């Protein structure tokens, strides 16, 4: 119960921050990515502000043995710079650069949808489903089934 409320609270602050930051305006995002145009650098401060906070706070949080409301920290110890990471990040970047939408803002915009979102959001879900499908098939084709625990498989995104 407490953990559920903590999740809801985290989401609320996250969504408010996204809307305030301007990240939910795809045209603003593209004006940031478009360095050859009239470059709008202001969104650098979103990443800067967010990472500034996490770099400082995560150090102290991860020094604890456990989180406040759970038995352990759930995060991968995956460190490899492998093909899926590079290919996945590249495809994501291409998609982001086309439209200006990334997953967080796409979810937040359910609060204020226009027709663009109803084209983008379902396609995004289909794309992720397609990747899981391809991955499952590849795993199924291997003679040894890999046993990967639920949380170690996911990096963080």
């Amino acid at each position, binding site marked *: 119960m407490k953990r559920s409320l903590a999740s809801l609270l985290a989401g609320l602050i996250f969504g408010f921050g996204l809307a305030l930051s301007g990240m939910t305006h795809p045209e603003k995002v593209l004006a940031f990515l478009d360095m050859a145009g009239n470059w709008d650098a202001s969104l650098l401060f979103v990443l800067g502000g967010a990472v500034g906070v996490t770099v400082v706070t995560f150090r102290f949080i991860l020094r604890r043995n456990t989180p406040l409301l759970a038995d352990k920290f759930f995060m991968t110890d995956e460190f490899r710079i492998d093909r899926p990471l590079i290919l996945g990040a590249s495809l994501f970047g291409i998609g982001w650069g086309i439209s200006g939408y*990334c997953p967080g803002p796409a979810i937040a915009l359910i609060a204020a949808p226009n027709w663009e979102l109803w084209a983008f959001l379902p396609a995004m879900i289909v*794309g992720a489903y397609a990747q899981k499908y391809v991955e499952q098939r590849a795993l199924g084709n291997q003679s040894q089934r890999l046993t990967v625990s639920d949380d170690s498989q996911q990096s963080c995104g």
Partner: protein
Amino acid sequence: MTFSFNAVLPPLIGGVLIGLSAAWFLWANGRLAGVSGILWRLLFSKPSDAGWRALFLAGVVGGAAFYYRLFSGMPVARETFPVWLLIVSGLLVGYGTSLGRGCTSGHGVCGLGRLSLRSLIATLIFLLTAIVTTFVVRHLIGIR
């Protein structure tokens, strides 16, 4: 390039709030606030922990709704932007974040926060490919 103090404050405060949200989430629940990972696991994995994932995402929607209620300024659709490009973009973002295990929030905000080299590489790659793609779409193809 445009730059002014007033234009920088909302992004900065918004970014700090996103960082505080991620810090609270890690501190309280021991989880990383990566939107794509939370979403894909909610939709495509065993629903044993669907509750907190759904609540986090509902919170993201609620927080944005609260902001627009207070300040309005909801984004308006681009009239001339092609639908098929939005669909292609969505497919790539979904496939890529699932394959690369993270998006702007997971690799960017959280991964960089824990000084992960893997996330730093991912962030540099998707920023770079996004910048190149925007250039191609806007300046070479001429779609806005």
